[in-house]
């Protein structure tokens, strides 16, 4: 019964969300505000469902895995419980929650971000090893832009920054805009397919 209502509801609410974009009247704003409110509620409920699924999965691993396989799920569940309990006593920087966040979580996030620098260097090296014509153009463009960004580059090749600026503002912008136009058109078409139930989360699913 509920599943039968999914498609009409998706069409109705999706259509309303599109329509309010063209209606500046306060009635349109009211509808938009209600839709956003419902979305927030749904997201909150979905987050609870997600966390429960996470706990269930980790508990299953603790029960079924070998000793070495149990370490990470236990660590994860222990950390979650510690943050939850610490959060009950306040979430400011001076509290235990703030200390855990600032001393554990933030350094973990920072270390993940710092990995990006190494991965980027690795990706650049792999790109430069390619031997096709597009890879050669990529290599030349990258070298020009890299050299133009350092003082030594202008000393070595005068006016290289002019060429680098042309690469960034010319071919680069043209390619990016081309991608954006294609993505914009495809996004509208995809949205219609999903809203009308032709394909996607509202129309597909287990049958």
């Amino acid at each position: 019964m509920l599943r039968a209502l999914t498609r009409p509801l998706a069409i109705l609410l999706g259509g309303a969300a599109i329509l309010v974009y063209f209606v500046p009247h306060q009635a349109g704003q009211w509808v938009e505000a209600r839709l956003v409110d419902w979305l927030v509620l749904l997201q909150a409920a979905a987050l609870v469902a997600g966390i429960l699924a996470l706990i269930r999965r980790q508990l299953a691993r603790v029960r079924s895995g070998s000793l070495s396989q149990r370490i990470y799920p236990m660590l994860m569940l222990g950390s979650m419980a510690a943050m939850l309990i610490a959060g009950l006593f306040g979430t400011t920087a001076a509290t235990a929650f703030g200390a855990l966040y600032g001393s554990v979580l933030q350094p973990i996030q920072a270390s993940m971000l710092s990995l990006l620098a190494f991965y980027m260097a690795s990706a650049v090296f792999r790109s430069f090893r390619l031997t096709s014509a597009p890879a050669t153009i990529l290599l030349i463009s990258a070298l020009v832009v890299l050299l133009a960004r350092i003082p030594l580059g202008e000393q070595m090749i005068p006016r290289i920054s002019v060429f680098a600026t042309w690469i960034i503002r010319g071919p680069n912008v043209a390619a990016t805009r081309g991608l954006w136009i294609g993505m914009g058109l495809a996004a509208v078409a995809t949205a219609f397919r999903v809203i009308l139930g032709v394909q996607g989360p509202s129309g597909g699913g287990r049958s």
Partner: protein
Amino acid sequence: MTRIALVWVLLPSVIASQPFDMASPVDSLNATTQMPAAATADFPSDTLAPNPVESLVVLDAPNDAGGVIDLFWTPSLDEGLGKATVGGYEVLRAESPEGPFLSLVTLGPGTDRFRDRTAFRGTPYYYVVRTNSQSGSHSDSRVSQAALSKSQWLDTNRLSVMGGIMVILLVLLVTRRLPDEQEWLLPAARTLTEILSRRHQGPTVYIPGTAGFGDMGTIASLTLLEQVLRLGERETGDPIVYTSDPMAHALASELLPRHTPDFLSPDPLIFSLSFTGEALRQRPGVGVVVGGMGAEAFLLSEALSRSGGVAVAGTTDIGETPFLVATCDLTLIGEEILLAGPVLAPGGCRAAGLVQDRLKLLVWILILVGVAAAKLGVSWYVRLFSTGGE
């Protein structure tokens, strides 16, 4: 430009309707500084009141929910002439033509318009623009006509967007009825089909992006997940799906027939960290990371690449795409991310490619006509596509 044109059309009628002999009701407020002409004759020129602004026009701002009134005026004749150099303008507002007028804002010299965003919908307001000289004297414009802000039902600035959406919808509906022989396949989708239809050592893992549900990449990725499930059903079995967004998790749970996806973390970086560990332990045969993602797309694709499986990735963040190209075996670029799902679907959805090609052709024609129109000085064509952004 539309508003200026509107002012020029309305200006004569507004000026004609002004009672020229009407004394300004704020004159009483200015009694100490606004001297009668005869009385000012013996004063030095810098204490003279400047000429007031002329042709004050007030209009309800178009295409809004009300509560906004636009004011336009012709600046004082003393602007920059050195007689009583204008120091600025002050906008005053009252709910009755008799006042009391309260100051709303002080503007610099040279200003000829103001948008009052503090009005209440349905309340009539009367405005006066006061011209202040640098010496401290001032003069007031005539009281404006009553301005009433109203809500509009249709944003005319967005009619071009509405037209575009109608065209896309029309092309979608027409193309769905095309015969099967006119099917069209993305090269990237063909490669993805080959990858998923092969037997691999290790499971297939799938990440529908890390961005929220507001990113079209996440929605497109879920439509692709349906096809990944279908294509890999025989050889690779159900993929292990890792989610970061709670809504994407809920919808992926609906799509997966035999098990629920793994929700790792709503934080993209922590999610990347968790997934890196999972990928290194699971050693997937195929890894698909497609959807809305930022810098974490690179971390996830690197984790897949280092785990030894076939890595397929794509993100709606164009800036990350070059790194994915360098890292992955197959990268979905731009529109391919959004089209891969519909193109791989059985039946009419393969026409998605045709829709895309026809729409792109239409956009190309519109752009070329626009370039020609701009060269020939045809401004209405550009206005046709303006959405009226401030």
